Structures are given as C-alpha cells and as structure tokens.
C-alpha cells in the first residue's frame, strides 16, 4: 500500500480554517506586542468568528461531502453545529468583553484567553463534522482542554483553580471511559468510521432482541463518557463547581459550547454510529433525561449563588435535551429528535450566555453573584433587570421567548415519538424550575436594592446583552428557518 497524500477539499474547511487563522493571528499579535493584543484581540476574535459564520454560507452542505477521506463530513449536521458553536462563541466573546476590560486578571493576556476560547469553538466545530472516532475525540478534547484552562483562568482565585481541577480530573476520567468505549466499538466492528460502524452493526443487530454483552458494554461506556460531557446525572457533579468557580464569562461559555460539543458527539456516536442500537440507547437516554432534569431543577432551588444555580439549571436543561434525543425513532425525515436538540442548543446559547452575561455585568459594578446581589436591580438598572428577566423567563420556557420554542419542539418530538411521559416530565420540571428562575426575577423586581454599586461603562458587554436579549425575545417568532435547518439532520446522520 503506497502512501496516499490526497489534497483535502479545502473549500469545505473554510470556516474552521478562518477560526484557526484567527487564533494564529491572535497569538502572533500577542507575541509581538501585548499592548496591541489587548486592543485588537476582542475585535479580532469577533470579526474572525463572524467571518467564519459568514463563510458557512459558501459551502454547499446539502451534498454531505466528506474530505480527508471520510474523517471530515460537511453535512447539514456539521453546519448546524458550527453555526451554534460560532454564535455561542461570538456571544461569549461579547460577554468576555466587560470582564477582561475591567482588569480582573491584569497579568494575564486577553489574547491567550480568546485563543483558548476559539480553540474550544474550533474543537466543537470539528466534533460536529467528525467522520470517525479519532477526529471526534480530538475535537472533544480540544474543546475540553481549552475550557479546563479557561476555567482556571482566574487563577488568583482558589475557587477558579479548584473548579478547573475538579473539571479536569473528572473530565480526564470520563475521557478514559469514553475512549475505552470507543476501543470496544472498534474492536467489535473493526472500524472507527461512524458510517461503517452503523453499516456493520445493522447487519448483526436484530431489533427487539437482546444484545451481545460486549456491544452493550461499549454502548454504555460511550454513554457514560458522553454523559459526562453534557453533564447528565449522575455524571454531572463537576458542573456546579466548575460553573461557580470559573470566571463568569468562562462559565457562560462553558455552559454552552462544550455542551454543544457533547451533544454533537452524542449525535455522531449514538445516532449515527450506533443507530442500529437506537432501541437500547434511546431508552437509556430517556432514563438519564428523567433523572437529570429532576435532579438539576430540584437542586437548583436550594441555591443562592446565581452561577451555581445556573449550573444546576444547566443540568436540568441537559435533561430536556436528552429527552429530545430519547425521542429518536426512525432517523428518517420527520424524526424531530436531533433537530429539536439542535434548536434547543441554539436557543440555549442566547439565553444562558445572556444570563451569565448579566452576572458578569453586575460583577463589573461591584456586586457579587448571589441572589442578594440582584435584589432591587430593577430599581437601580431597569434595563439590566429586564434583560435578566427575559433570560430567566426564557430559561423557564415562557412564551414567546426563545426558550419556549426550544422546549416546545422537544415536547413535540417526544409526543410524536409517543414518549408522553417524558413530555409530562418536562412540563412538570418546567414548573419546578419556575421556582428558582422566578426567584431571581422576584429579587430584582420586588426587593429593595442593597450592596454597593459602582457605575461603570461597559459598552461592548451591554451591546452583547442587548443582542442576546433581543434575540431571546424575538428569534422564536422567526425560528422557522433555523428549525428547518436543524430538521435536516436525518440526511446527515442516517
């Protein structure tokens, strides 16, 4: 067998390459002049991601073309994941604006921060486009490793390091389990290419029959490893600690993009690769979904720290999204499961990054991150309070906010799949979640302000929050095209 060095289809790689270019540029500028980097890094990261976003339009995703052999798949699914990752990345950069501007970490470069953030975005995009286990794994790790570092970014603060350490140790542990699962799949099917795996399995699995234990073991090891990435109970425990410990913009980021990567990986691995085992994993995800949403939403009630509360709430949302995946039925056109999850992630990016963004905004003004700190915010900063209220209500699932649409599509998917019990669980848990989301609104609107308040100007952060608030408010109304895009996944994953 001779060496085959085939030139890849570069045109398919334009978006990740733009991101990569941005990273390189950031690092280069930083190497030349730290001062210049500080001034140009933010706009650069923004422009880079925006360009990448725009370049998504240049590719004909409908073909489902692969490059680098079958390693890289430019299909609808990859498009949507890239889209969400880039949008979330842009929003995170906006949220980061205030934080770094304020000089919290004066000794640490902004450029590295943004470079790591972009690495993570890049990794997520790679996961979305992965055609085999290795690429998928590398993408996941790239996404994760960057976030480990980002979590510890406020390294002067012990909690930040503590959160990062916990995240890292458990993440590595889970990675080992995940890779073990992949090894098993490889060993049983003889391939690491997702489509080949599905093909092989289809020939050996009869629906309704018990499975070979090894196959089940492989499946479960994968599920555990991926369950960690998306923070499903009982693999979730790093989440609240890491969210609380990380610098707030990083919390904002890590609540969304790694989760996108995780769900993309779940979709690639389970939905695409192990589709013949859907009977088994759909049931498993259903159970995990239930436990996850119950645990996350209930424990969030007991929290007083907003970031921690949002951490638990993120677990709850993982539960909803898992429920969406559990609604998988046929993988044919009309199956809404993965599409609903993709849309959920899209919506989640706006509202959750927004919520963390408001917390960052408050920290800029000298407040802490507890419930007491937002008391009376509506009197002090009505717009900020309104923005936060929008995010909270959207997370709660109040129409006509974006979060409602997301939840609606998941419920729709579930009911179409006949999983009524999960749909009911979602709405019951939504009611429970109203407890703690509403408490934030209550604090802001119904209480008198306390604490000190330092008026500062954070225009970029404000802009970001405004964008997210408006999007949360209005995107649902015109969610048709996005949803339509998200619903094209069967063409990619089947």
């Amino acid at each position, binding site marked *: 067998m001779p060496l085959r060095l085939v030139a890849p289809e570069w045109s398919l790689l334009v978006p990740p390459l733009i991101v990569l270019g941005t990273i390189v540029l950031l690092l280069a500028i930083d190497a030349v002049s730290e001062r210049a980097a500080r001034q140009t890094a933010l706009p650069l990261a923004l422009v880079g991601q925006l360009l990448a976003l725009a370049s998504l339009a240049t590719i004909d995703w409908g073909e489902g073309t692969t490059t680098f052999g079958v390693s890289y798949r430019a299909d609808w699914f990859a498009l949507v994941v890239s889209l969400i990752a880039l949008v979330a990345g842009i929003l995170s950069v906006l949220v980061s604006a205030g934080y770094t501007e304020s000089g919290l970490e004066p000794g640490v470069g902004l450029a590295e921060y943004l470079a790591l953030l972009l690495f993570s975005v890049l990794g997520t995009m790679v996961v979305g486009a992965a055609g085999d286990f290795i690429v998928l794994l590398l993408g996941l790790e790239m996404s994760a490793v960057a976030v480990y570092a980002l979590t510890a970014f406020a390294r002067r603060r012990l909690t930040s390091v503590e959160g990062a350490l916990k995240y*890292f*140790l458990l993440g590595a542990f889970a990675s*080992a389990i995940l890779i073990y699962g*992949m090894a098993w799949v490889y060993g049983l099917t003889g*391939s690491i290419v997702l489509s080949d795996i599905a093909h092989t399995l289809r020939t050996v699995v009869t629906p309704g029959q018990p499975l070979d234990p090894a196959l089940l073991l492989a499946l479960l090891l994968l599920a555990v490893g991926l369950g960690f990435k998306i923070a499903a109970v009982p693999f979730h425990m790093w989440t609240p600690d890491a969210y609380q410990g990380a610098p707030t913009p990083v919390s904002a980021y890590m609540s969304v993009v790694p989760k996108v990567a995780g769900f993309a990986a779940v979709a690639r691995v389970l939905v695409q690769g192990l589709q013949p085992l859907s009977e088994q994993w759909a049931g498993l995800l259903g159970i995990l979904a239930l436990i996850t949403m119950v645990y996350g939403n209930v424990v969030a009630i007991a929290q007083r720290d907003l970031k921690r509360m949002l951490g638990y709430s993120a677990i709850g949302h993982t539960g909803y999204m898992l429920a969406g995946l559990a609604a998988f039925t046929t993988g044919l056109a009309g199956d809404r499961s993965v599409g609903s999850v993709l849309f959920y992630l899209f919506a989640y990016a706006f509202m959750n990054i927004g919520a963390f963004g408001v917390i960052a905004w408050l920290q800029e003004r000298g407040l802490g991150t507890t419930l007491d700190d937002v008391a009376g915010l509506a009197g002090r900063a009505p717009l900020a309070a309104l923005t936060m209220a929008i995010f909270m209500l959207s997370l709660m699932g109040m129409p006509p906010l974006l979060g409602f649409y997301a939840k609606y599509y998941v419920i729709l998917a579930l009911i179409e799949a006949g999983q009524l019990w999960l749909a009911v669980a979602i709405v019951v848990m939504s009611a429970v979640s109203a407890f703690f989301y509403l408490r934030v609104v209550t604090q802001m609107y119904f209480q008198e302000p306390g604490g000190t308040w330092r008026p500062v100007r954070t225009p970029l952060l404000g802009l970001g929050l405004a964008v997210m608030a408006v999007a949360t408010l209005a995107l649902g109304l015109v969610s048709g095209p996005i949803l339509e895009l998200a619903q094209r996944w069967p063409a990619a994953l089947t």
Partner: protein
Amino acid sequence: MSELSATHFLLLSAALFIIGMVGVLTRRNVLVIFMCIELMLNAVNVSLIGFAWELHQLTGQVFALFVIAIAAAEAVVGLGIVMALTRRADTVDIDELRQLRE
C-alpha cells in the same frame, strides 16, 4: 486460551483500567489520581492494540497513537492546573478543595 488471543489483551486491559479507576476513586493526591488516569488511558491502548492485532488492522494502533497524544495534552493542561493550584493553596490533597460544594 492456549494460543495468545485478543482476549488476553482485553483482560489485561480491563485489569489495568479498573486498577486505574480504583485509584482515581480512592487516592487523595492529585498527582496520583493523575497517574491513575494515565494508567486508564494506557489500558485502553492495550485493548486497542489487542483488537488491532486480532483484526489485522493498523487502525487500532493509529488510534492508540492518538490516545497517547491526547494523554499528553491532558497531562500538559492538568499539570498546569496543578501548578496554579499549588501556588494558590499549598496542597495537592483534593479533599481539601471543598470550597465549591452543595
């Protein structure tokens, strides 16, 4: 079992993996936990090599190669975090890191 087969590799791999896992579960020293994770990754590699040998493929070996790379990357970041940690708190005992809880 008389001939060497992938099963041997797999059993070794399982043993190493689980020893590593038990180590992660029981040790308090961050660095030892870290080593245990490396042990687990290494165990996975044993599986991969065993499978590859059985299947007459190189894919498993390639995979193992990348796993090593991943392990290295994790090691780099992990040790960076440990460095940052020891600067903040003079300990590598994870049981002492309990500020974030409940």
